[in-house]
Structures are given as C-alpha cells and as structure tokens.
C-alpha cells in the first residue's frame, strides 16, 4: 500500500509535468512573455544642424543617465551615501528622491553624466542602479549661434529657436525593438528590431559660420563699448535672400543649462520690434520717385527746420534750407521727408511699406517672430502720415528692415528670405519698385557714408557702401524718452550690392547715441570682414598711400 501511494504520487507528478510542459505550455509561455518581453524604444539620433559650408552648429552626442529601481535600491539604503557621493548629489536629496518614488520601479538619479562618472557608478555594483543611453545636444559655436538655434530639453526635444521650429524633421522617428529583460529591467537579450529608428534629418542653414562669428564679435564689442543694454545684427545675401548671419547680445553659452535665462535667449532680430526712424526714409523717397512727381534733383524747402502739421510740429536737427531729394536722405531731414510724403496720397506710402514686408512676419522658421505693426492708411491722421514718412507710428523687426533694404539692393526685387541654404535661386520674386528707382535711391544713400553724410564711419575700404542711419527715441511706458536705439542699415558694394546688413544697438549710454557714431562702426567692421570672406570684388580703386602699406608690411612678422 505504501508502495502504491508512492507510485500514485510519482504518476501524479509525472502527469502534472506533462500537463505543464506539453498541454498548458502556451498559456504559461504567454504569461512569461508578458513578464519579460518588452518593446523598447531605440532613440533616434537627432539630426545635425550645419552651416552652409557643412560646419556643425549643433550635434547630439551619446551620454549616459543613471537611474534606479527605488524598490530595490531602498533595500540597500546603507549604500546610498557612496552612491550620492559618486553622483555628486547630497545623500538626503537622493534619499528623498527615492522615497517619493518608493513604490515605482524607475527613477532617474542623475541625467546625462560624464562617461567617467557613469563608469564609477557602475563599479559600485549597487543593486537596482543602472544606466540608460541618451543623447545630449552640443553646440560647438556656443553663444554665437545660441539665439538662432535655441536649445533642446533634457529629452533632446527642441524648446526654442530653430531646434523648436524644425524639431520634427530633426528628431527622426524612434525605432522599436523587442527585448528580454530581467526583473531589474536590464536587457538580457535583443530579440528583434520591430522598427528601425529613422535618424533625424540634417538641417543645413544659410548661415555662414565665419560671418556669424565675425558679426558676433563686432556686435559684442560695439555693445560693450557703448555700454548698451542689447544689440542685434542681421546680414542677408542680396542675390538669394539667404540669412548669412544673425547675432544678438547679450548671450549665454547654451551648453551650460544653468546660464539659460530668457534675456539671453531672445533672438532680438525677430522678437523685438521698434520704430525704424530715419532708416525708412529711403523708402519714402523711393515711393516719391516711383510716383513720377519727384526726381532726385527736385528741390524741397525745409526752412526753417520746423513743419507745422495741424497742431503738431515736425523738426529737423538743423535748418537745412532748400535741399534736393538726395540730400533729404544724406542729411536725414524729417521736414523734407514729411513734405514729400504729405504731397502724395497716404495710400502710396502705406502700400510700399506693406509690400516691402512691414507689418507681416516672414514665417521662415523663427519661433516667437513678431510681425510689427503697420496700421492701415485710413487710420492715419495728417501728423501720422508725416510720422510714417520718417519712421514713426509703425514698428518693424530688424529682419524686416534688412528684407526691405535687400529690395533696394536687388534693384527693386523682393526675394523671400531663407534661414536654410538654398540649392537653387528662389522662384517667387516680386518687383516692388523699378530698377532705376532702386539705383537712384542707392546713389543717394552712398552720400550718407561720405564725409559730408551722417555716417562716414560706416565706410568700408575698397567698397562703396550705401546705407542709412537711424537714431530712434525709445518709447517707455507710452512716452518718448531720451533713451535711444542706434541703427545703421546698409549694403555693399553700392553698385551691385551683394550683402545687406542691419545693426541695432539698444540704449547706448557711453556718451554717443547717433546711429552714425554707435551702429555705423560695427556695420563697417562686419561688412568689411564679410565682403573679404566672400571674395567680393572691390568696386573702389583705393587711393593707397604706398608709404603706409610699406609700413604695414614691415610691421608684420
């Protein structure tokens, strides 16, 4: 009987084994798969952002993040001290972080640590602690491109700037793979790729890194020298509408996230609007020339330097007397511009401003881009009409101003702007004014940079510059103040312009505030460097003092 019972028991066990291993295996195996088979995301490599010559501006490099299974790790609380020490955080903080997620199986301990720290953590062999591969964005050009590119968050998702605008194409599509994991979440075996990750696309910008550096350096110097609060500069390629440089001050290094503050992040070229002041006078003149009522030599009486418009007055700095249209620009006469504008329908001025792009955003990919304000002419009063002629009563961004100047530079043709490198010239060009008008206005603007104009400091040796200064009273709390915005917008070479540059220095406090004294020198430095970098043929045969050249050569090592 005892033998019989043993036999029955043995047979029972055998039957059970057959049941479990043959008959019920599918159920049990499915249960197993549910527990250890996981579909894991394979992070897609975020696309590189390059300049027009392929130089990297933003790259993602692999890093490790340290995470833990709090349930497991809390059982080894005696080891938290050395772990916290290695990670460089406080023990109490680590413990608190674990306690918060005590019932979870995943908690980051420290993200994106240097490789040597990750290795040290792993060498501690603390149960429940593991690494996770992630990508961290690195910006080789740091603050020089920070406003333009923006940055990504810790999950490498674009938060600002071009990183945000083009996030979708940069990000790529994460892949999926089926893996077997042990109970602590570590991958034991990669079974199969369910979906291969699609790496993000490379973004090639129209920016020329060399010009960007140069512009940044010169802008920074000008802002510091003039004790200004901020500044911005935009350079366009006239032939294509591509943005070659876009720099701002103040700035911070985007690789150090502790430095990121909004005032350092704003891409002021597109986010800050201001009344453009005298810099739009060339467009008033262009409108007048286009109307056929004026020629460059038409005389205008600006005496006595004050113009009554209703109950308001328009003033010039000096009484320029009887001057021709060209000198309205070179002398920057508000009275002259007002008289010309008021003699023509308001609609004409509004129309040319509108078609130049004022009042509407470029929509070429900048997050937070402002459109500025250009009221419909039907809302303009007489003084409003006059004000619009010399740059008050409406607002623009530096990018819009540069775009408008590019129209003058391109013989009256407006080309869509681009922050991406164009492999073929843009198609939808629009003629805003006749080529003759554009050339005439450019000639007038050459005088601005002459010794008799308002901005001789904007001159570039070897190249004829055409441009216009602007010194704008800033509005603070709805009132004009004695704080200024110093502008210089211009192009070179004047005959066949290749480059357009706008430089804005905000609130200079070192004694000077005229655009010709504050913004013009920076314009000259940036423009001259850029023309040489791009090998633009000089259009002015320099009157060289041979002796000084010889002396220069002798000084060089």
């Amino acid at each position, binding site marked *: 009987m005892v033998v019989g019972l043993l036999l029955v028991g*043995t047979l029972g066990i055998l039957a059970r084994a057959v049941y479990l*291993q043959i008959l019920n295996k599918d159920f049990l195996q499915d249960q197993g798969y549910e527990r250890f088979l996981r579909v894991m995301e394979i992070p897609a490599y975020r696309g590189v952002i390059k300049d027009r010559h392929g130089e990297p501006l933003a790259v993602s490099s692999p890093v490790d993040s340290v995470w833990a299974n709090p349930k497991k790790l809390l059982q080894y609380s005696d080891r938290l001290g050395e772990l916290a020490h290695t990670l460089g955080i406080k023990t109490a903080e680590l413990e608190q972080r674990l306690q918060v997620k005590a019932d979870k199986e995943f908690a980051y301990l420290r993200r994106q640590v240097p490789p040597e720290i990750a290795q040290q953590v792993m060498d501690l062999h603390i149960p429940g602690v593991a690494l996770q591969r992630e990508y961290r964005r690195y910006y080789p050009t740091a603050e020089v491109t920070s406003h333009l590119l923006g940055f990504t968050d810790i999950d490498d998702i674009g938060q600002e700037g071009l990183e945000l605008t083009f996030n979708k194409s940069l990000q790529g599509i994460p892949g999926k793979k089926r893996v077997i994991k042990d109970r602590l979440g570590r991958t034991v075996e990669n079974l199969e790729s369910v979906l291969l990750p699609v790496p993000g696309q490379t973004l090639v910008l129209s920016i020329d890194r060399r010009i960007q550096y140069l512009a940044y350096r010169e802008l920074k110097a000008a802002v510091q020298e003039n004790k200004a609060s901020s500044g911005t500069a935009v350079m366009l390629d006239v032939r294509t509408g591509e943005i070659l440089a876009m720099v701002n001050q103040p700035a911070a290094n985007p690789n150090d996230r502790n430095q990121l503050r909004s005032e350092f992040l704003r891409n002021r070229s597109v986010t800050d609007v201001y009344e453009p002041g005298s810099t739009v006078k060339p467009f008033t003149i262009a409108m007048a020339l286009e109307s056929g009522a004026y020629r460059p030599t038409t005389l205008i009486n600006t005496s006595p330097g004050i113009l009554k418009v209703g109950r308001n007055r328009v003033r010039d700095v000096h009484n320029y007397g009887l001057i021709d249209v060209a000198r309205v620009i070179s002398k920057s006469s508000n009275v002259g511009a007002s008289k010309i504008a008021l003699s023509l329908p308001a609609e004409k001025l509004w129309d040319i401003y509108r078609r130049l792009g004022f009042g509407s955003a470029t929509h070429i990919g900048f997050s937070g881009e402002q459109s500025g304000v250009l009221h419909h002419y039907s809302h303009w009063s007489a003084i409003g009409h006059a004000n619009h002629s010399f740059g008050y009563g409406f607002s623009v961004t530096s990018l819009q101003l540069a775009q408008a100047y590019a129209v003058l530079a391109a013989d009256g043709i407006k080309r869509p702007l681009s922050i991406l490198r164009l492999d073929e010239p843009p198609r939808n060009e629009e003629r805003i004014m006749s080529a003759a008008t554009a050339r005439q206005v450019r000639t007038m603007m050459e005088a601005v940079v002459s010794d008799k104009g308002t901005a001789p400091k904007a001159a570039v040796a070897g190249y004829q510059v055409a441009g216009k200064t602007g010194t704008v009273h800033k509005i603070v709390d709805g009132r004009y103040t004695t704080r200024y915005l110093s502008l210089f917008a211009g192009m070179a070479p004047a005959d066949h312009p290749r480059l357009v540059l706008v430089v804005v220095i905000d609130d200079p406090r070192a004694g000077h505030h005229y655009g010709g004294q504050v913004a013009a020198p920076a314009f000259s430095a940036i423009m001259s460097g850029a023309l040489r970098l791009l090998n633009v043929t000089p259009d002015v045969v320099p009157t060289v003092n041979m002796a000084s050249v010889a002396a220069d050569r002798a000084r060089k090592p």
Partner: protein
Amino acid sequence: MLKTATPRSPTSLPAPDLWLWLPGVLLLALGLLMLTSASIPEAARQGQPFYFVIRQCFFLGVALLAGLLTYRISLESWYRYGPWLLFAAILLLVLVLLPGIGREVKGSARWIGLGPFNLQASELAKLFVLVYVAGYLQRHRIALQHTLETMIRLLVVLGLVAVLMLLEPDFGTTVVLMITALGLVFLAGVNVWRFAALQGLVIIAMGLLIYSSEYRWARLISFMDPWADPFNKGFQLTQALIAIGRGELFGVGLGASIQKLSYLPEAHTDFLFSILAEELGLIGVLVTIGLYAVIVYRAFALAALAEQLEQYFAAYLAYGLGLWIGIQALFNMGVNMGVLPTKGLTLPLISYGGSSLIVMCVALALLIRINGEIQALHDAEKPAGAPVRAVAGASP
C-alpha cells in the same frame, strides 16, 4: 562457506550497490550543474558569480567524506545508538529555538550558526529520528501488533519532535518526517484499521494546524490558485510554473533560463527544480524522477529482502530512508509544479544547502551499507540454506 565470517565486517562486504550509488552520483552531478546555471545570475549581482557554486562544492566534499564515514559504520552501531540519536535530535531542535544559538532567516529559526556556515537542525533530526523509529519498531515488533500502549509511546516521542519542529516553524519537514515515520509504522505490520484511525487523527491535527495559522492558510490558498494574485501571494509559484512551461519537451537549453534572472525567487534552492524543468524540459524531469525512482525502488527491494531475512531493523531503516528520499523529492517537485503548498523543502541531493546535502549523502551511504550487509548475509545464507542468523541488533 564457513559461517564464522561476520557479515558486519566491512572487509567482507560486497562492492557497493551500483543501483544505489550511481543514481546518487548522477543526481549530485545534475544538481551541481543546475545549481551553477541557476545561481550565477543571482550571485553575480552580489559581485561573486561563483559564490553558491564554491560553497556547494565545499559542502559536497564534506558530504562525500561523511558518506564514506557512514559506509564504515556498522548497522549494529546505528541500532545501538538509536535512542542517543533521538536524544541528539531533540537537543538540536531545542538548541535551534534558543535565542543566541538559533539563527532566524525569513521568520524561521531553523539554523544553528557554525562560523561561516549554518547547520539546519531539522535535517539531521529527520535522519536521527528515522534511525530511532526503525530501532523502536524492531524492539517492539510483536507488542505493536497487539497493544496500543507501545504505539502510543512512539507517537508521544514523534509528537514531541513534531512540536519542536513546528515551533521553528518548519512545517514541511514535520510533514515529511511524520508521513515517513507513520508509513514505517504501517510497514511494520500494525493493524490496518487502527493505523487508519491514527492517520485520520494526524490528518485532522494537521488540518487544524494549517487553519490556525494565517500564514500557512495564505500559503495554502495561494498554491490552489496562484493566478488569482500573480504579483503578490502567487508570485513565486506563477514564476515557477512559467519556468516549467517554458521548458516544453526538450527544454530551452542549459544556461538559457530566463526565469532564473531574478524572476523566480529561490531559484537555486527550493525552486531549482523549476529551472531544471525550464532548461532541460520534460526529458530532464523524467530523468530526474527516474533517478529517484531507482533509488527508492532499490531501497524497497532491499527492505523486502531484509524482511525476508528477518533483519527487521535493516528492513525498517531501508524502508524509512527510501520513503524519506522519495517523499521529499515528490513534495519538492509537487511544490514546484503547484500541486502542493509551498513548504521550504529541498530537492534531495540537488538543491543548494549544506545540511541537506550532507544528510542526504549520509542517508544514501547508509542505504548502501545496509545493502552490503544484507547482501553479504543473503549470500551467506543461500548456499548453506541454514536458518536465519541473528545480525545487528536482532535481539535487544
């Protein structure tokens, strides 16, 4: 052949029985192999991948020495020292309960610390008590069949041992020992009906014990339907069943178990069989059961022969050891497969654990020794056809 040859003398023993030592050695080898496979992931997490393997190898060395030593001890000595062994068993079971001597692990005080190693008191106690019971049955064989009193005296002793074991608590070992001992009593020829009544009493007592303890009740319930609460009470068992189910006919292959990767708790001790079933499949399970079956069958055949030769102590001890090994193996496999409640019983000769390994090797060596003596006696009897001689402890 001259009858003066003493069967007790080791020099005159026939060669150790192949059908006992070979399955034993195969089980030990299989055990070490599976332990290596199952324990490395767990041990590697602590930084020493071969921690359990090295310790088990050391235990195996001690166990083989203990086995060799046992093989040299005559049956008569075992018989003579039976009561002392009982005393030793009770002493061990008391010691383990004393704070400062017994070491508590996971709520059970089952171990006596010996430096870096722990001695599991009830493992030794099982062997000692069986030796005692076999001796007792030999001494009171006739009386047992007629009076209740001798029976009750034995039951009182067994009851005392059971209570001490339950105090640890070690319910699994208690059940195995009691079933083995009572099976032995039955084999000794005690009246079937009286025996059945006793069995009923024991079953009722155990039922009450289970019901009275919430933790045992919870364990019992969880084994009946582990899938009802697979992440809490049924966790270990569902993981074991998954492991077994993954094995199919031929297994996932040696070393390829996934369930040993922290999924199945105690994968290297009580639930090593599940990993064996996962890696070696139904074939591996059949071979394992087959090896135990050979040992148990051989022990029973030996016992029958001894009974025939009226060597009752040898017979009862062989029955007892065979039953013990068989029942404990069945229980452990039954627990792994979810047909018995979780008990904390080792798989004889296979599971990790020094005490169990050493005691099981001693038990096997004892069986081989009994076989040697009985075979020698049998060979001595046959040609002469002489009447039965008194051997070890035949007359107290």
